[in-house]
């Protein structure tokens, strides 16, 4: 039994070693090299310069905004979903867009938001001058939120659906208004779903790079964009790797914050 269980772990261990451990080691290794391949700590010194720190903060700020708006849309939606008659059908309809390639959806938004897109056409009917919606903070956050919403809805929906309805009656019975019931009972009991939702939104939002270019027109520089530029444009693998190391660190920290001990996950 023992050996067989251990044997069946081999593919998994190999996978982890080759695709998780090795890349992280490589990234750390490259982060310690300068442009000429010599060992140095300069990259780390540079990271703490004002330009990179500002970028980190911007990245955080946008990821925070994206997560916040995603949550604000996803929670009520998930709540309404649990109350509908054909909730599984509605859920599928919400999830389906997440199966479509990210790039395709992004291009679709370029069309929608563009100067000659339907939104501007609609505004013109009411006599407004066409305005550039694309390449603004608004369009960037809007598209990001749109992309992340299904991932946020799913865990929250599951948590709400699992919750015992009679607890809501009990709270009402004990004198709680709808808002108090939500604040003191429903939300605390679905906080695990919210945490999972934040995890799957906040962490990817930190490293978004494609949408920043296509939708935000490179006006928004996030950690993800910076890594891309260091590797592909500046050809400075050392600096790119250093930013990546910090990104990994930030991910680990945010997982610690939103981690759920009772579920016995990998996060300690």
């Amino acid at each position, binding site marked *: 039994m023992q050996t067989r269980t251990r044997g069946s772990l081999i593919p998994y261990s190999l996978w982890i070693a080759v695709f998780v451990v090795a890349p992280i080691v490589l990234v750390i290794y490259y982060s310690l090299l300068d442009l000429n391949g010599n060992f140095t700590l300069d990259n780390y010194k540079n990271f703490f310069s004002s330009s990179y720190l500002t970028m980190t903060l911007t990245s955080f700020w946008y990821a925070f905004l994206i997560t916040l708006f995603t949550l604000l849309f996803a929670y009520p939606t998930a709540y309404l979903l649990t109350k509908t008659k054909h909730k599984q059908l509605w859920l599928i309809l919400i999830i389906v867009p997440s199966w479509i390639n990210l790039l395709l959806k992004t291009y679709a938004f370029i069309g929608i938001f563009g100067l000659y897109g339907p939104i501007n056409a609609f505004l013109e009917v009411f006599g407004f001058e066409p305005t550039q919606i694309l390449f603004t903070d608004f369009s960037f956050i809007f598209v990001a939120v749109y992309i992340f919403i299904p991932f946020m809805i799913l865990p929250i929906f599951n948590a709400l659906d699992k919750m015992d309805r*009679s607890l809501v*009656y*009990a*709270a*009402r019975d*004990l*004198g709680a208004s709808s808002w108090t019931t939500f604040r003191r009972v429903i939300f605390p*009991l679905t906080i695990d779903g919210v945490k999972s939702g934040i995890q799957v939104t906040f962490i990817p939002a930190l490293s978004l790079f494609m949408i920043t270019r296509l939708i935000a027109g490179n006006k928004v520089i996030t950690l993800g964009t910076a890594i891309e530029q260091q590797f592909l444009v500046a050809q400075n693998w050392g600096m790119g790797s250093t930013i990546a190391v910090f990104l990994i660190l930030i991910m680990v920290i945010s997982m610690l914050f939103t981690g759920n001990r009772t579920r016995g996950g990998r996060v300690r």
Partner: protein
Amino acid sequence: MKTMGQQPIIRFDNVSKSYDSDTVVLKNIQFSLERGKFYTLLGPSGCGKTTILRIIAGFEKPTSGDVLFDGKRMNDVPANERQVNTVFQNYALFPHLNVFENVAFGLRVKKRREAEIRERVSEALRFVNLSGYEKRQISEMSGGQLQRVAIARAIVNDPDIILLDEPLSALDLKLRTEMQYELRELQQRLGKTFVFVTHDQEEALAMSDEIFVLDDGMIQQSGTPVDIYDEPINRFVADFIGESNIVEGTMIEDYKVKFNGKVFDCVDGGMKPNEKVDIVIRPEDLEITAVDKGKLVVTVGTQLFRGVHYELSTTDRDGNEWLVHSLKKAEVGMEIGLDFEPEAIHVMRLNETEEEFDKRLEAYGDDEHAD
């Protein structure tokens, strides 16, 4: 204690409830509850008993008719503004809060001072014998303890009315019997109005001041446990409450009833001559005797030892089944005689309303119940 005069604490005035035109859950429910008594709504599942409870709690609105508390119309008052607290079927305790916070919930919502909350919660926990369990998590408590937490959470708010929705159904038999005593005692110590919902007739008989027997969305009969047991209004109630032998018969005249081809003396009257009736004789009122002395002659089919008594399933010559509870043993397969007193025969008219039934009982009152 309170000086609300003669107003009933709860009154249902012609209350009906339907979800759509096809599903009528309650039909013209009419009753008044007095302050400080223990009421039970008893009936099979789907009879509407839980719907009545939910209407009192404020979770459902009646489709027509009025609900009055102390004479005030309550139809549109939401659940959180009613002086009513519920002990739920599966307790519905908050799993993210410990015992203290569960009990304190109602007081915290009402923004009571911290010192007052502490005092009242520990008093409520003392009341249900759970002092010292304040810091426990809900997941660490046993079924009986959860039950007590749920009760404490309701009584701590000092409500006028406490509703209990089959609160004992999840407990094992021994604990259930214990809790019956405790609930009854608790109700008497608190002096609150309890409305208890159950499908268990033993629970209802043991605890209530008054029972409402429900079936098919209607109140079939209401009265004290003794009244309902001794004088069931119809076949349904007789069958639902306790064990019964029910046979069809004919009322010859007042105090004379005919069934199984014989005429017997009885203590009922007020029917038309030769009216078709249902006859109830409780198994414990049948006594085993010699074949030639018996008013009925039956053959013993099976015999079970029930501890206090033997339970005999017997069949008479016409093929009617007679259940007998007897302290004496009988031989399976043997013919025996069954004897009974005229008082043991309870005659029920078909389709009699509760009002007519009560009036007739009063006129032909056989004993002390006709008050």
